[in-house]
């Protein structure tokens, strides 16, 4: 069966790029890493059986590469899941900045929890599939999901002043014409 590499790239580029982007929250690095992963796939194309296999291969590769990249670049350490506040109901309608804010909060999660959340909600993978991909017991995946949701919910509910110091959630901005 003929493997069309160009077609593999076309079909999977959004998935690969997005996974890296949601995890690393840096477009340039995400793009660079996504390219590397495709090249890695190209070099091992003889091991790729079909389009479906290519997709799962790429997904696994970008996940592991993203985690490695994070460790290598020593990004800002994430908060610990042990500091989860009491869960509270999420009220209010989702809106534009809510999505931006959520993406930011997801990128603050510890790396494994972050990857679990991204795989679950971007890729719609089941906990079993996530466990296989990240080589993690299913119970651990479920625990990451549960605690991450609780943490995200708690953080969204957290009240405070809109004006925060530099380096906080919302940096002081000065935009003048």
């Amino acid at each position, binding site marked *: *069966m*003929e*493997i069309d*590499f*160009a077609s593999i*790239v*076309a079909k999977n*580029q*959004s*998935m690969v*790029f*997005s996974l890296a*982007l*949601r995890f690393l929250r840096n*477009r340039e690095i995400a*793009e660079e890493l*996504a*390219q590397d992963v*495709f*090249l890695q796939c*190209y*070099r091992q*194309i*003889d091991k790729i059986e079909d389009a479906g296999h290519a997709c799962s291969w790429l997904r696994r590769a970008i996940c592991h590469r993203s985690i490695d990249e994070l460790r290598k670049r020593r990004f800002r350490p994430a908060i610990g899941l042990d500091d989860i506040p009491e869960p509270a*109901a*999420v*009220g209010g309608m*989702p809106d*534009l*900045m*809510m*999505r*931006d804010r*959520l*993406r930011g909060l*997801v990128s603050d999660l510890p790396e494994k929890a972050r990857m679990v*959340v*991204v795989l679950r*909600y*971007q890729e*719609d993978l089941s906990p079993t599939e996530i466990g296989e991909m990240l080589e993690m017991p299913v119970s651990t995946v479920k625990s990451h999901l549960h605690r991450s*949701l609780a943490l*995200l*919910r708690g953080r*969204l509910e957290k009240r405070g002043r*809109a*004006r925060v110091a530099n380096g906080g959630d*919302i940096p002081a*901005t000065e*935009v003048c014409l």
Partner: protein
Amino acid sequence: MNENLEDVLRESLRREAPPADFAAKVLAKAGAEAPRATLSVVAGNSAKKPWQRRSFTLALAATLAAVAIVPAVVLDYQHKQEEARGLKAKQDLLTALAITRDQLQQAREKVRRTTRIIQ
């Protein structure tokens, strides 16, 4: 409420397309590497004319893509700059609107607590 947060998470984490020239760059880099004969497993591949072989096609596609890349990269950079400016401006606008709304709400609550309103 969990369902609501999960829905919002799905929306927030929806896949985002890479830059327009992403595929071209990948193909260009792949084409620059040694051709992979195993790209195609169709029998009799070696009997094909050079331009019929997948490796040749890939190299040609990569060369053409590389030629197209340069202006595309420049345009993409400019587009990214503009996009970044727009996103920052949007963030600032939402911040300002939220503060305005909250200030008006607080003023309303304060008025309720007191009895004097100047008209």
